[in-house]
Structures are given as C-alpha cells and as structure tokens.
C-alpha cells in the first residue's frame, strides 16, 4: 500500500533529516509525511533526543600522560638512514635479476652442452697432431732434454689415461710425446712412428717409443721424481687440448657471465650497505 511504502521511506530519512542532508524533494516528502504520521513524528523526536544526549556526553579525561619518552627522539638524519628502504629495494631487485639471469643461463647451457661436448674429442686430436708434426723439425738438443722426462710420462700417462675419462686425450698426448722423443732417432723412424700413431693404434707404438729413449731414461738421475712433476705437466699438455677444444664450443668472454658476476657483486655490496643502514637506524 502506498502509505506503508511512504512510511518505510520516511523512517529511512529520519537520520538524514536531522543532519539537514536531504534533497529538497526528500525534505518536502518527509515533512508532509510526518505532519500526518504520529509514529514517524515520535521516532524523529526520540532520535533527536538521543543525538542530543550523545553530544552532551562528557569528555573523558586521559587516565595518564601520553607524552613520548626522550629515547624516542628522532636522531639527526644521517644520509645512510634514509637510504635503508631504497637500499632494501635495490638489493631485492638486483638479487632477482641475478637469479633470473643465472637460472636462464643454466637452463640454456644444459640444452647445448651435450652437443658441444661430443665434438670436443673429435676436434682435439686433429689440431694436436698438427702441432706434433710441427714440433718435429725443432732443434734436436732441446728436444732431447725434453724427451727424457716426457718419455716417462708417455707410458705413465698412457696408463693414466686408460683410467681417466678423457680417453680421447691419450692418443694425442702420446703422439705429442712421441713427436718430441722422435728427433733423437732418425727422421725416418720418426716419420714411421708418427705415421703409425696417425692410425691411432696406441699400444704397440707406445712400447716401441717407450723402449727407444730407455738409455736416456737411465741416464737421468730421478725419473721417478720427475714423473709426478711431469704428470702435472701431462694435465698441462691436456689443457691445451681442452682449451683448443673449448674455443670452438663457446666464445672466450661470455657477456652473460660478466653481467651475472656484476649483479652478484652488486647484490653483495648493496646487501652489506643495507645491513649497515638498518643497524644505524635502530
């Protein structure tokens, strides 16, 4: 019924009417309604009294003093203080950037590494054999001096290499050693040795090559002592293999690595600065 609706609408307007928050139309409607409706008039008056009572509530006094203690006084701002939030953000961003780059780098390298690794051993023997042939014409005297120590590791290294994973490195090594040893013999023997080695059948040639410098070996005072030293030379010989192998696989200076290292350094520096700033702040 219209009167019921009017009534409900008027009740909802009581509060706003008291605060003069009605539009002109609403105000007109309301005043017309309460002129005829005793209930709404009563409600209006009750609300008016209540609001007046609320406004008249006495001010409660604070039970104690709320002054701040001296310790809370702000220190004069040293520059590093204000930097703490900025440092924290910078550290976080640098750390995230580093992690993202590093993860991306690892994932990418994993997919490529299989292919490049396989190509390494194949590439290695070829350049080193070329090196071996180049070494051959070198002066006999220097090569004789090198021959003795390298001869020992030739056999030792060959045993070595059998147990080590880099089996591919062994034939080139023996080829290199043999090439160095060879000039003590006649050129023809060297050629034949090299030729045999080129076919990559290590064992018989090795023993032949090893046998040749035997007199020289006996002449040297401490072959055993030198052997470990030269065993370390053997990995040194190996190293050229890997580096030459590495060169075709990847560029020498990886820009991504540089960026990663720089970011890591930045994170560390920022982290330390942030730590200092936080301590000073407290």
């Amino acid at each position, binding site marked *: 019924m219209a009167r019921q609706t009017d009534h409900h609408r008027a*009740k909802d307007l009581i509060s706003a009417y008291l605060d003069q928050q009605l539009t002109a139309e609403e105000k007109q409607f309301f005043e017309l309604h309460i002129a005829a409706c005793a209930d709404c008039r009563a409600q209006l008056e*009750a*609300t008016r009294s*209540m609001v007046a009572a609320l*406004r008249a509530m006495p*001010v*409660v006094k*604070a039970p104690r003093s*709320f002054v701040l203690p001296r310790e809370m006084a702000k220190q004069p701002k040293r520059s590093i203080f204000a930097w703490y939030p900025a440092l924290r953000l910078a550290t976080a961003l640098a750390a995230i950037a580093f992690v993202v780059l590093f993860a991306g780098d690892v994932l990418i390298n994993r997919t490529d590494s299989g292919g490049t690794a396989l190509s390494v051993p194949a590439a290695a023997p070829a350049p080193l054999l070329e090196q071996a042939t180049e070494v051959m014409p070198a002066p006999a005297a220097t090569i004789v001096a090198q021959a003795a120590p390298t001869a020992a590791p030739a056999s030792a290294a060959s045993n070595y290499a059998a147990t080590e994973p880099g089996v591919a490195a062994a034939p080139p090594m023996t080829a290199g050693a043999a090439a160095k040893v060879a000039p003590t013999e006649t050129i023809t023997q060297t050629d034949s040795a090299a030729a045999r080695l080129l076919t990559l059948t290590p064992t018989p040639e090795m023993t032949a090559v090893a046998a040749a410098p035997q007199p020289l070996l006996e002449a040297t005072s401490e072959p055993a002592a030198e052997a470990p030293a030269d065993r370390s030379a053997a990995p040194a010989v190996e190293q050229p293999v890997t580096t030459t192998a590495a060169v075709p696989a990847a560029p020498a200076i990886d820009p991504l690595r540089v960026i990663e290292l720089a970011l890591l350094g930045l994170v560390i520096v920022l982290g330390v600065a942030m730590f200092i700033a936080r301590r000073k702040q407290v």
Partner: protein
Amino acid sequence: MDENALIRSAQKGDIDAFNRLVLAYQHQVYNLAYRIMSEEAAAADATQEAFISAYNHLNSFRGGSLKSWLLRIVTNACYDDLRRRKRRPATSLEDLMGDENGEAEFDLPSPTDGPETIVQQREMAALLQRGITTLPDDQRIVLVLSDVQGMSYDEIAEITKSNLGTVKSRLNRARAKLREYLLQTQGELLPENYRLDSNQG
C-alpha cells in the same frame, strides 16, 4: 609558543615541542578512543599508538586542524584494534557492566549544574556507552564520530575511506539500533528530558 611554531619544531625532531602538543590534545584523543573502544585499556593503547604514529609522520601534516589530524589517526588505530579483536557485542557489554570505573574521570561540569544533573549526565553517558558497544564496528565508528565528536559527513567519509551515501546509511542504521537498545533496556530510568517514546511504528 604558538601551535604552529611547536609543530614546526616538532617536525624537525624536537620531542619536547611535540610533547607539549600531546599535553594539549591527549584528553580529546583519549576521549574519542574511549568512546569507540568502550574500554580504558584499549583506549589507552590506541591513544599511545596514535601519538607515536603522529610523531613519526609529523612531516605528512600539511597544515589545517592538528586536532582533526590527530583524531583521524586515533580513529584508524581504533579501527585496526577492533578488527584485530573482533569482539562480540555481548562480551563487551558484560565487561563494561562489571567495570565500576567504566566511565573514568570527567571534565568538571559547569558550576551552574546541580549534583543531580551531573549524576544524570553520567548515568546517561554510561547507558549510551553500553549501547554503543552493541553496535557493529562500522556503525559504531560512524555514530561516535558524528554524534559524540560532532564531525561532518564529509570528514567522516574521508576518515573511514567511504562515500557519503555509505556514511548516511550507516549512521541511520546505527541510530535506529541504539534507539532500540535504549528502549529495550533502560527506558524507564531515563531522565524526563531524555525519555524516548515507547510507541513504535
């Protein structure tokens, strides 16, 4: 020292200047907190929190009424506290009724008021406070800011981060609910001036 000078000094970190401002406003700030929280301990916590926050953020005060600014801060502190506690109105009521010191101290009434008036006022205030406690948080805050503190709808909308329509409807419902409460509980004990009509529409 005038207030603006104190504020400027306090903004530079002068805690003594700030404390003079605290002394000037602490009753008003505490009063609002008490009217919202209905409890001394909670009100004291909110007040302390408000003044600490005010000191730390004094540089964001851009002039205007410092009182309004402080009351805004303490209202937010109360809001946060209410949400944390999520009190049920019935529980608050029991706490309040059991607490003889519920009303704490008042400012001295004007000398022309007789003792009866004072008693009446305090009884009325206690009754109203109990009623306020029965209101849901949003309605409670709007009612106290408007009718106890005397703030405008616009100011309330700004403090509570709501719009004018929301403030109006919450206030309407809060007043209706409080009216109901008063009728149900203490209708006959109200002084003649404040007696509410028992007829209902």
